[in-house]
């Protein structure tokens, strides 16, 4: 039995809004997004979450990392100790070791490639104001360590003399969409997360980057001992990288297993894949 890193139980979330209709004045409309959802993510594995648009995938991610509140349920993050994530703030959750990437990248545009990496670094010593004034030596040393680490991470993946390191002083806004996606993933290495949520890592990215992304995901799991939980629409990619797969529909998990099993499941074929 594999170890668990994330255990979700009985999670529900609905948006409630009051609407005014012609007949009834203050009717309440309830849109259920997650419906008593149970799910487990194994440690040291890549787990994929598939499902149609509006099935609650991104909502689930936003709840796990604290951007949204849930109505009920529990989310246990097991990293040495067991942490209940519900009710915690996003930055607290990130400091516990749970990171994420975004569909729309969320890169720091005005910072250089290197600065994007350094900002993500786990060590926050120099980020207290005046530290660089009163403790310049230590600050310089930590900055140097972080820069070295950024270099190692980039060179491990792309070899020496690669594009990213050569253009490290370039502002991130000048990068292409695919390069930004990759920078977003590289940033995660700097932060030293234990579990990362990746929201559609290949969507909208030029296929020439697929190999790099696959490579990065495998390194996350094999070399950096991270666990990966990703949302993906590209079934080929899921089959290629994921160890486990869950199918979400109408706000709860309808099928789980290996990617091949889940994709072959008749329910998944009928309701999502459509063949």
């Amino acid at each position: 039995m594999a170890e668990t890193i994330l255990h979700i139980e009985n999670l529900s979330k609905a948006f409630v809004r009051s609407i005014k209709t012609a007949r009834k004045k203050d009717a309440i409309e309830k849109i259920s997004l997650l419906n008593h959802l149970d799910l487990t993510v194994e440690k040291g594995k890549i787990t994929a979450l598939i499902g149609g648009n509006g099935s609650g995938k991104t909502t689930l991610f936003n709840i796990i990392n604290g951007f949204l509140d849930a109505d009920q349920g529990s989310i246990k993050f097991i990293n040495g100790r067991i942490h209940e994530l519900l009710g915690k703030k996003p930055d607290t959750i990130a400091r516990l070791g749970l990171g994420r990437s975004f569909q729309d990248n969320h890169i720091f545009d005005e910072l250089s490639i290197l600065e994007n990496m350094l900002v993500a670094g786990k060590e926050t010593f120099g980020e207290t104001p005046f530290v660089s004034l009163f403790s310049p030596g230590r600050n310089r040393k930590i900055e140097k360590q972080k820069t070295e680490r950024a270099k190692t991470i980039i060179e491990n993946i792309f070899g020496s003399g690669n594009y990213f390191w050569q253009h490290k002083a370039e502002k991130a806004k000048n990068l292409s969409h695919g390069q930004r996606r990759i920078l977003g993933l590289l940033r995660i290495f700097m932060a030293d997360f234990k579990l990362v949520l990746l929201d559609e890592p290949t969507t909208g990215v030029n296929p020439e980057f697929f190999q790099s992304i696959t490579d990065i995901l495998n390194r996350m799991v094999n070399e950096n001992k991270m666990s990966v939980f990703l949302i993906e629409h590209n079934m080929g990619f899921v089959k290629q990288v994921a160890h486990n797969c869950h199918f979400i529909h109408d706000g709860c998990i309808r099928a789980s297993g290996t990617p091949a099993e889940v994709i072959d499941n008749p329910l998944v074929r009928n309701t999502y894949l459509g063949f």
Partner: protein
Amino acid sequence: MNYLLHILIMVNIYIILTVSANLIVGLANLLSLGQAAFYGIGAYITAWALMTLGLTLFPALLLSILITASIGFIIGIISLRLKDDYFILATLGFQIIIYTVLYNWISVTRGPYGIPGIPSPKLFGLVEIDGILPFFLLSSILAIAVIVIFRNLIYSPFGRALKAMRDDSIALLSLGRNITKLKTQAFTIASGFSAVSGFLFAAYITYIDPTSFNLDEAIFIISAVMIGGTGNIKGPLIGAAFVVILPEMLRFVGMPDNIAANMRMIIYGLILIVLMMFRRQGLAGDYKF
């Protein structure tokens, strides 16, 4: 010569104000309409420290910075929970509340009568800083010190985190940084350093009254930041120099005083609009505001 030194002292005072305001407006992208309040608190604490407590130069300056920063911290905690327009409104609200207190708490601040006869500060209790040349030197030293400190802050990991927050606070949050803490730190530091300007103003002019620290002054400080440009050190320097020197230029070309006062405000207004439309990074800034 004295006239020139007077202008330069005023430039130094405004450099400190704009460089501090740049930390919140330029780096943290928080438009604060309350900076004049901190400038004023700094000036009133200085008057109290020099007159009533009889402190010498550095203790008085330090006390003024500490008390102003503490008030800035409290105001920051309250207003930084709010977003966008609501944050601006909160700082505007505090600006007006503090002005009202300075104006009406007559038993302490003498209200509209102001505080005259603020004594010259003494350096280590020995040398009295009196006369225009010593004040020019003192204000230049303080301005340079503030510039060095803020340069250091902007290019430190703290400044980098602020720039990252300005670009994308959601991403920074997901990397485990406490956004509210960052903002509060920036706000507290900026308000504390505004007190240095207040100190210089009170000690140099030797008379203060609330009207020097009203909402118009707060808007004026923000205008100086916007005109110079945000995100680096050069921008605020140019902005401060510009807003102080422009009125003197108008006088120099022979515009009568009663017209010049209105004309220079019209010029500031025009510059603000033109910059917002065509050059949001100001005259010398790094970032488009």
